[in-house]
């Protein structure tokens, strides 16, 4: 059974360690905040200028002047701080953020990522993604393993315009958890009931399978 969005987020939350500063991209990565284990203290950075992002506000606390990078209304926490976009990206570029979690349209076996443009069809812009992938100490990608037509999104080489080179460290898809190594995608875990063969079929890039591959534990 493939993982759903919340399960992907829950699995990624296991990668978050105590004391980390973390930037969460739009989409599945945003959901990761809901699954950070108790006792793990992390600080969420929102690249539009906030450190210490709190939960969504209750109706009476909605403030148009307090949003996250996904333009959602949010709250601060005790110990939060607010700063400009140039200070925010100084923080990111200067490698002060420990972990970046973001979505992708394609990832190559060398760790290249494409997530900002489909030529002729969609141009939303890269936003802060290029800065994040160029400087993050650790990048985990949350994505679907295949497109709707079944074609793989884990490729030998990206076909879409790339966002950054050789930067992705780990990938959590609906089918598997993989590590990007010098030799290709190393399979770490399978979604419950999904076989290595299923994953092999869904992966165009080099897949490295060593020993028994355990199922994801959530």
């Amino acid at each position, binding site marked *: 059974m493939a993982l759903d969005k919340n399960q992907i987020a829950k699995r990624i939350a296991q990668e978050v360690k105590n004391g980390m500063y973390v930037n969460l991209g739009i989409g599945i990565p945003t959901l990761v905040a809901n699954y950070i284990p108790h006792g793990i203290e992390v600080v969420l950075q929102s690249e539009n200028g906030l450190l210490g992002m709190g939960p969504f506000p209750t109706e009476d606390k909605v403030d148009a*002047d307090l*949003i996250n990078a996904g*333009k959602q209304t949010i709250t601060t926490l005790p110990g939060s701080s607010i700063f400009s*976009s140039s200070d925010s990206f100084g923080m990111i570029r200067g490698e002060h953020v420990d972990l970046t979690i973001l979505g992708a349209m394609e990832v190559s076996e060398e760790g290249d990522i494409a997530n900002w443009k489909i030529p002729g069809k969609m141009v*939303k812009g*890269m936003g802060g993604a*290029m800065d994040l992938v160029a400087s993050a100490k650790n990048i985990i990608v949350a994505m679907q393993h295949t497109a709707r037509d079944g074609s793989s999104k884990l490729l030998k080489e990206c076909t879409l315009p790339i966002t950054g080179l050789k930067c992705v460290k780990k990938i959590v898809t609906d089918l598997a958890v993989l590590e990007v190594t010098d030799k290709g995608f190393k399979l770490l875990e399978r979604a419950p009931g999904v076989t290595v063969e299923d994953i092999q079929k869904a992966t165009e890039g080099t897949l490295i399978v060593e020993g028994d591959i355990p199922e994801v534990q959530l």
Partner: protein
Amino acid sequence: MINKTVKNVQEALQGVQDGMTLMLGGFGLCGIPENCIQELLRIGVKDLTCISNNAGVDDFGIGLLLQKRQVKKMIASYVGENAEFERQLLSGELEVELNPQGTLAERIRAGGAGIPAFFTPAGYGTEVGEGKESREFNGKMYLMESWLKADFSFVKAWKGDTAGNLIYKGTARNFNPMMATAGKITVAEVEELVPAGELDPNMIHTPGIFVQRIFQGEKYEKRIEQRTVRQA
């Protein structure tokens, strides 16, 4: 202290002409200079180059300037949530230069701080790097990026004083502080304009030297793009 107050938005925008380069503060619809945008619509200046992180939505913010075809070129980092924008872009009516968000922020800061160029790793090896000088430092590749300046910068602050000092509120700060430094003429619209001396010198986000004109704006709509709430 030098007094930067102008009496209204009309006076604040005097001298804005067709073909000028403008910076407009804000992230999404948060912290945008609503009054100045309305006045740009009213005076109808055309062929503008607009530098702004986003392009508003179809019926608010810079989206309104796009609807009226006042914009020739956009320099931005993210322009989703705007169908008219995407249409003009794909049809070639609108020229667009997309920058990584941190690069955009830093280019604007550099414009204000007299730094003509700097190196950043963002965009190396991507379309963004095409035609740009690249260089290795400590084993990592970087692109050389240049400063951005504007004929007019329009920024929105929470409080301001007559000396031009500004304080922003929450994440409505975003691009406003850098843009305030990079305009030949910087116009600040504020929710509350107070006499010089009422703001704590230690807590000023934008020093008055950067602001040429300041006025108290009216009827802030502060539209919310993604109203997300939890149960009390």
